[in-house]
């Protein structure tokens, strides 16, 4: 692979060789075992500081140049090995005279300012490095952003000034046309690209690999692999697919005709012939792309011109307050296993990524089961710079995956689970702030910690801006989305004197708690989009400023509509950001005219829709209710934002369509939904059930005549209510219900028999005439199938079971229940005498014997006083309860 170091090696001389020797020793540490590793390791070291002994800066501006740019880039492992006196031009880091270096920095080379203070991103120093010139890290963009940051700092004094976006018309207007989209199922992928990935990439990019490294596009499951591979495939231009370019960009010829591997990245080439391997991959992707049928755009739509996000005008968002920034991770690289500290505060605290994680296209890292860690040595600047002020802020844009995980580190500066300087943690809906201060105040683990109030549920499983500040005089504070959560530090503040400089800095896990094969013990699940450490407690206004600045890049997309209306230079402006790995956010559609003194008039606009790759997006159409008339330039059509699923990412073809725009219209008619098919018949279900609690209660009240609001009954019912059935189905009927019902039945029968009026109405009325409640059992009931016994049973039968039209009339009893004779047999008929032990559980009802005779055995046992009137009452209660608590009254 041709790396920045290779190029440096070619271009510069011996100064680099010593550096290279020391760096090559590190290469094997990061190589993956899946193939021949050709990746060189980035230079993560701090600039090698060169002492300046030349003339003093002539002006304050030169001084500012020196502090912000020269000091950072004059080191020999930056630009100072070449662009120095006697070296390559421009000599903007010459060490003999910073004033001359200043002049060189302000010079023009090939029509381009070496440093363009008005537009730092247009500086030659920035564009050159961004295009691959001598980046000292593995990612050209990180180096370019770093240099741009130096220039901005010089130009602004601070980095807090916001830049005004200048809208420029797209240079080429393209019509939306047929466009390819990724198929929803993985079958085509499985037959084309997947076999190549399985054969050559599964050594690392598989979740089952011992050297597993995300993204896992070589998983054996084609669905999973396909999902992870999409971002690496360019179906419109297969040769530009990341899968191909990482092996070799076949559009770039070899610089050495005798070595075709030159100008190739050769990432884990399996044959050693980078171009041959790239061609194998290219063929597979071409076969995949050729198998996709392009979506034809509906010609009746009223549509704008086409735009891709990559065509948009980039806005870095609002200005952040970073005057006291000491470390910053923006996670912009989208690949690799290093998250760079881009604070420009040396030494940089770069983080090594471990375990399972995904880079986010929207900038960020999603921790699935992993960590990002800097060693104690690399993190030492945090200790030194924070202790020097005694105060600090931890700032992060985070997306917790869920609100169930507890005691998990989002950010921690610690050595293990019990020793730390600080931590930002999650416990369910709460953010927790650990801070170690004087040992008498905060223990060595930073406890007691400050937590957000659980009732406030400040932590949500969505993108949030979190800042934790600490300073003497205030103690700890937590801000979520710019707002002070109002939670107060449980302990007084103290000095940071007990901080250790021997702790590591980690995201998403605990230092020393994870193993390569299992990080679950302490892994935090979620995403970080930005992490910053400041060595001052940010003020509420500064926190609000950083919250307002947002995170990630914003693009301005100008959708041309001039061809639809009679006003030239007309556009619909959309603010677009990549929201996460699966969607773009579109915001604030605005009519913009880039002409001079345009005459706009009145342009009706209605029903705006977002199109993607040849069709209108199926979900997320947040502007279909736009209905207004454009009359002025910069007229906002909607303040709302909406998200649209991405398909290919930055190469998705977007366009806008309109129900009405000017004199154009497209009528949207939504078809009626189809009538649903008749559902299939269910299994047969019972058409009877059990009575539920109130029904049981009222049934017993109705059958006995005892009021349900009788005090004893109400007390008993309320104590039994939860034990009675609450649903009619038999399936839920259990023995506890049965016991509850029998207890309640007894209570009703008890009240019935003990109340002289009630019992007289029930048993004593004609034709039953049983009024012997003041006699003992034998007198009251007589012997055999006596009239008295029959009277009791008849009363129970007529009032509770048979409900004949007139008393004791068997002809009109309900035909679906038991007969009077059956009840007689069960309760009193001597023909059904008990056989054997009457207290044994009967095997069948026929040998159980009638209830009356079995109760008579209780007389001999002595548990019922049969020689008293109470015994008579008890016998009646028993017979009453047997009927009232039976299935006759339970089943409905």
């Amino acid at each position, binding site marked *: 692979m041709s790396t920045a170091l290779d190029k440096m090696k070619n271009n510069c001389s011996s100064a680099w060789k010593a550096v290279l020797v020391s760096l090559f020793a590190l290469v094997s540490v990061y190589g993956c075992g899946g193939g021949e590793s050709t990746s060189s390791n980035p230079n993560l070291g701090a600039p090698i500081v060169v002492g300046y002994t030349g003339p003093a800066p002539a002006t304050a501006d030169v001084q500012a140049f020196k502090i912000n740019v020269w000091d950072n880039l004059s080191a020999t492992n930056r630009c100072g090995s070449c662009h120095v006196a006697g070296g390559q031009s421009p000599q903007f880091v010459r060490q003999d005279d910073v004033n001359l270096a200043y002049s060189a920095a302000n010079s023009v080379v090939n029509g381009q300012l070496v440093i363009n203070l008005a537009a730092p991103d247009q500086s030659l120093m920035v564009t050159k490095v961004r295009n691959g010139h001598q980046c000292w890290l593995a990612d050209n963009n990180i180096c370019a952003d770093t240099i741009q940051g130096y220039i901005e700092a010089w130009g602004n004094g601070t980095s807090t000034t916001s830049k005004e976006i200048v809208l420029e018309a797209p240079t080429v207007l393209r019509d939306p046309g047929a466009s390819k989209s990724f198929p929803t199922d993985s079958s085509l992928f499985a037959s084309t690209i997947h076999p190549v990935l399985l054969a050559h990439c599964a050594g690392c990019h598989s979740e089952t690999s011992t050297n597993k490294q995300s993204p896992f596009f070589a998983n054996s499951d084609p669905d999973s692999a396909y999902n992870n591979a999409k971002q690496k495939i360019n179906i419109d231009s297969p040769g530009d697919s990341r899968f191909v370019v990482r092996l070799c960009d076949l559009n770039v010829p070899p610089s050495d005709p005798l070595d075709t591997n030159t100008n190739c990245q050769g990432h884990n080439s399996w044959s050693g012939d980078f171009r041959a391997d790239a061609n194998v991959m290219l063929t597979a992707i071409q076969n995949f792309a050729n198998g996709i049928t392009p979506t034809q755009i509906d010609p009746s739509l009223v549509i704008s011109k086409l735009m891709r996000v990559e065509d948009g005008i980039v806005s870095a968002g609002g200005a952040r307050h970073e005057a006291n920034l000491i470390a910053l991770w923006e996670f912009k690289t989208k690949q690799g296993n290093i998250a760079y500290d881009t604070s420009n505060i040396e030494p940089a605290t770069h983080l090594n990524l471990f375990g399972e994680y995904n880079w986010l296209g929207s900038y960020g890292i999603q921790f699935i089961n992993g960590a990002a860690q800097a060693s104690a040595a690399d993190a030492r600047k945090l200790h030194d710079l924070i202790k020097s002020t005694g105060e600090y802020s931890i700032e992060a844009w985070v*997306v*917790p*995956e869920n609100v169930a995980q507890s005691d998990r580190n989002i950010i921690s500066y610690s050595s293990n689970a019990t020793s730390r300087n600080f931590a930002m943690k999650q416990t369910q809906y709460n953010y927790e702030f650990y801070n170690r201060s004087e040992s008498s105040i905060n223990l060595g683990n930073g406890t007691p910690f400050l937590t957000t109030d659980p009732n406030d549920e400040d932590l949500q499983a*969505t993108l949030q801006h979190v800042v934790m500040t600490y300073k003497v005089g205030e103690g700890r504070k937590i801000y979520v989305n710019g707002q002070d959560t109002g939670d107060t530090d449980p302990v007084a503040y103290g000095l940071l004197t007990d901080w250790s400089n021997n702790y590591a800095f980690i995201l998403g896990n605990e230092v020393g708690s994870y193993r390569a094969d299992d990080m679950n013990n302490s892994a935090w699940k979620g995403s970080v989009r930005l992490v910053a450490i400041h060595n001052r407690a940010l003020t509420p206004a500064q926190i609000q400023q950083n919250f307002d600045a947002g995170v990630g890049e914003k693009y301005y997309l100008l959708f041309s509509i001039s061809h639809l209306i009679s006003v030239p230079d007309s556009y619909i402006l959309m603010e677009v950001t990549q*929201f*996460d*790995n*699966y*969607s773009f*956010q579109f915001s604030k559609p605005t009519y913009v005219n880039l002409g001079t003194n345009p005459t706009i008039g009145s342009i009706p606009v209605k029903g705006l829709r977002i199109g993607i790759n040849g069709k209108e997006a199926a*979900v*997320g159409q*947040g502007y*279909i*209710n736009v209905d207004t008339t454009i009359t002025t330039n910069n007229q906002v059509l909607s*303040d709302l*934002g909406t*998200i649209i699923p991405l398909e290919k990412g930055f190469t998705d073809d977007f366009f806008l369509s309109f129900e009405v725009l000017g004199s154009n219209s497209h009528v949207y008619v939504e078809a*009626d*939904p189809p009538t649903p098919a*008749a559902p299939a*018949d269910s299994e047969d*279900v*019972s058409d009877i059930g059990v009575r539920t*609690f*109130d*029904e049981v209660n*009222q049934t017993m009240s*109705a059958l006995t005549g005892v*009021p349900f*609001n009788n005090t004893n009954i*109400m007390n008993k019912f*309320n104590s039994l209510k939860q034990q009675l059935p*609450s649903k*009619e189905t038999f399936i839920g009927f259990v023995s506890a219900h049965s016991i509850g019902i029998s*207890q309640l039945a*007894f209570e009703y029968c008890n009240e019935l028999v003990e109340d002289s009026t009630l019992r007289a109405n029930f048993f004593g009325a004609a034709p039953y005439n049983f009024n012997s409640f003041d006699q003992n059992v034998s007198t009251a009931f007589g012997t055999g199938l006596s009239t008295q016994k029959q009277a009791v049973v008849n009363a129970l039968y*007529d009032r509770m079971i048979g*409900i*004949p*039209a007139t008393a004791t009339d068997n002809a009109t009893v*309900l*035909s*679906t*229940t038991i007969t009077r004779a*059956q009840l007689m*047999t069960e309760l009193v008929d001597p023909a059904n005498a008990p056989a054997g032990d009457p207290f044994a559980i*009967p095997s069948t009802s026929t040998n159980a014997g009638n*209830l009356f005779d*079995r*109760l008579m055995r*209780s007389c001999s046992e002595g548990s019922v006083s049969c020689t008293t009137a*109470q015994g008579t009452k*008890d016998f009646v*209660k028993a017979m009453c309860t*047997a009927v009232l608590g*039976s*299935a*006759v009254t339970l089943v*409905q």
Partner: protein
Amino acid sequence: MVNANRYHTVIRALLLAGFAGITTSYALADATSRAQAARIYDRLTGVPPTAAVLNTMESIIDSGSKSDAAYVDAAYEAMKNKNFYNVTLVNMVTPWTNEEQAVIPLDSETEGTLNDYTATVIGAVRDDLDFRRILFDDILYVANDDLLVAPYNVPAYSYSSNAHYKTLETLDVNLGGTFGSPAKDVLVSVSQASKTGGELTPAETAGVITTRAGAKAFFTMGTNRAMFRFTMLNHLCNDMEQVKDVTRTPDRIQQDVSRSPGGDSRIFFNACLGCHSGMDPMNQAFAYYNYDDAAGKLDFNASGELDPDTGTRVKKKYRINEYNFVTGYKTVDDSWINYWRNGPNKLLGWDQSLQGSGNGAKSMAQELAYSEAFAQCQVKKVFQTVCLRAPVDSSDRAKINDIVAKFKQPFKASGYELKRVFAEAATYCK
């Protein structure tokens, strides 16, 4: 108290006797008119009939030659029993009044079971009101003033207490009937607004939704989405999952709904959006309502009454977690719109004579009440209550449709009379 020894003996005796021999009942279906009458009565009231009422019903059925109309008449006779109102209706309605959908609410020991929500439904059934009115009208049923004095001593109705109904349910009176001599209705219909202590005007009431019990259950804390969800569940028989439609515009989904739960917007597209796109614009009708737990009553931001956090009449609960998606919809008033009038949920059968949009709870609740799904739902719930099962086959489904059609027609009053649905269902399942 019961003598423990005797109690023990009787229980033993019961266990010995077993219930094996006494297991059949008139619950089983039978073609005799007396048995059919018994079953109709039992299913409608939850209790067995007396011989007297059974004789009457049998006579009605026989004199009507066992026609459906005769059974329906017999059912109306059965529904005169207090337990139709006190037990069957109370137990059917009580689960609509709490989030747990419990027939025995968690707070029933302290608060009782009967409340102004259930009482209002009972009154509407008793009076054969157009049942749709329970969702949106200025309607409330309270105990007769004559029950507020000795010997009944029911506390006066209060918008901040359930004591009125808690006492009422302990009286042995027919909630759907009369008491005393001369007979007076136990429940009387009043203007709900007149009983809210000035909290609501008639235009701001919405039937059971703005009763104290309804507010206590579903306007408490949260975002008021519980009120919409449970109204859909209890009165249109559709939970959010069943009305999920991801093709509606998300332009009224509020800011608190994360567009990327856990960092994965696919979850939003496939799940959250499907419900919130339709629910949020409807739920915004409740933007001025909240249940004040401390005061124990509904709190409404009247015209000119501004919420200190929103600076508008919109309650703070509509703006919580605003940074979850800051460019999401910010509720600014109580306007609502029904996006489900198109797409798959058009099948819910919205009333085309209504606008499908408006302001406030009353018109939104009317939108729900006038849907075909509302009528279907009431019939299905009654069918379940009376037949002890859900419809299972084409015959049952055809009967449901038949009863729905009858439900809409004037019978004893102007139509949408729920008693008729009970009578028809009991006739079918006799």
